[in-house]
């Protein structure tokens, strides 16, 4: 397994480095149109061909990778922060807050995650500007993903509160702030870290599915989901290059899962 994880880490590093600044090494920007070459098949100049507007798919793939790989962790950070606040607060305070958290998370989790995402996305403007659509999509992912991690964090805080070292710290006269900082946070951090790594691939996949259904990031900004919409026009597997975003996405998510299994082992 170590070899697999090592390969996954190397692959993710390479993809990450390639996606940091695609403008340095790709032939064109994501929105540059080659009007004389629309729908071109793969060639040396355009490794994945061009789309119906004559834009270089290879360049768009890497710009889209940058967006997904930057914003999925950002959204995961948002949901983990919300989970830490809600779950940690409920677990620490107990009583009414704990009950309120359970009820609220029951409510959130009574709906399938993707359905909830689709529903709330529909209530927000669909014709948002490209940058606003990025913020909207990933803010939504972050805001709606708090419930499951909050429950895990709440359970972890409750468990820590009944542990011997916690009682000992209290008996030694530690102030609440110090107990929180020195005893609770270091023990909850691995749980939050694991939740973060669970959320990242889930958000990447959710963005891709939303994009494919026309509810994701708006044109002309590229995203994996937006590029996968081109599959709609693929009559057969012969146009293999249209599947390139799906292959890269699957490889990235599989690599993240391989690394995630390591995180699980360590928690």
């Amino acid at each position, binding site marked *: 397994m170590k070899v697999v994880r090592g390969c996954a880490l190397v692959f993710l590093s390479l993809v990450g480095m390639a996606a940091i600044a695609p403008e340095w090494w790709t032939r064109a920007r994501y929105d540059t149109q080659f009007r004389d070459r629309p729908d071109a098949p793969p060639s040396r100049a355009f490794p994945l061909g061009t789309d119906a507007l004559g834009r270089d798919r290879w360049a768009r793939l890497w710009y889209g990778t940058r967006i997904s790989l930057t914003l999925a962790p950002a959204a995961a950070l948002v949901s983990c922060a919300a989970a830490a606040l809600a779950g940690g607060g409920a677990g620490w305070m107990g009583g009414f807050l704990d009950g309120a958290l359970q009820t609220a998370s029951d409510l959130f989790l009574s*709906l399938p995650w993707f359905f909830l995402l689709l529903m709330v996305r529909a209530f927000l403007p669909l014709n948002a500007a490209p940058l606003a659509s990025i913020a909207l999509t990933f803010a939504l992912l972050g805001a709606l993903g708090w419930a499951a991690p909050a*429950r895990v964090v709440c359970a972890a805080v409750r468990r820590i509160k009944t542990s011997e070292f916690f009682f000992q710290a209290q008996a030694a006269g530690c102030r609440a702030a110090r107990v929180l900082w020195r005893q609770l946070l270091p023990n909850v951090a691995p749980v939050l870290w694991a939740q973060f790594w669970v959320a990242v691939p889930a958000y990447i*996949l959710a963005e891709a599915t939303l994009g494919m259904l026309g509810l994701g990031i708006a044109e002309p900004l590229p995203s994996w989901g937006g590029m996968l919409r081109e599959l709609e026009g693929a009559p057969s597997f012969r146009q293999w290059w249209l599947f390139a975003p799906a292959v890269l996405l699957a490889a990235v998510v599989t690599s993240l899962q391989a690394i995630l299994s390591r995180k699980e082992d360590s928690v």
Partner: protein
Amino acid sequence: MVLIVLAAGFICALLVRYAPGALVDERELDPHLSEENLAALRAEKASDASVNANFIRYLRGAVHGDLGYSESNRAPIAALIADRAPETLRELAIGLGGAWLIGLAAAIPAGRWRNAHLYDGLSSAAAALLLSVPAAVAAYVCLLAGLTSGVVLMIVVAPKIFRFARNLIVPAYGAPHVFMARARGLSESRILFAHVLPPSAPQLLALAAASVSMAIGAAIPIEAICEVPGLGRLAWQAALARDLPVLVNVTMLVALATTVAMTLAGARPWGEERKPEATR
């Protein structure tokens, strides 16, 4: 359970009321409308401003089978749901039934032959790979291969069931009483049905309930891509057309389905008893 469904509906109604453009009618843009007509339209919309009154009116109508009217489909919502539910139910039955068969059939050998590391590694890798493909992409690929939406759902849900079931069954096969049963010469089928599955039954039941939620979530992109006239496609079209009354109804229906499944399984959605799943 009823409270959760009602709360889901009420929150939806709140979202509908405060969604951008909720109190604006597109007909107001019509230059042919007179001032009186515009005033009447605005008054009609203003009467919809109270969330509580609207929700109570909706519930009263729902009791009598009136779920409202879909502007985008130009049809009563109750009729739309009645038309589309059978297709989704059929798809869910095929998808979930097949996914459980495949998931369990793939998980049991991993526990039964504890030294079959190659099989365990390959099956886990295959599951991880399938889990890394968005449901919509899987739907496209299956569509090109001529498979039906039920089969696509099966392919999307089976790896999740396999993964959770494997994590339950492998430790169950390693329990001392299973070794003892094997030493006493019990048949493998008896070991499975009497000594492996019963201790895992509560978790498997919780997984069964969770799989309903997974399948409903996956049904939306699959129906949208495979053009299946089911509830998932209805929800997607309603989302694109911002047909919010349809979304409220479908939301309550989905919340009802998942909470019934969770209640029947005796599990709270993603509760502490299922924490190992949540951390995965």
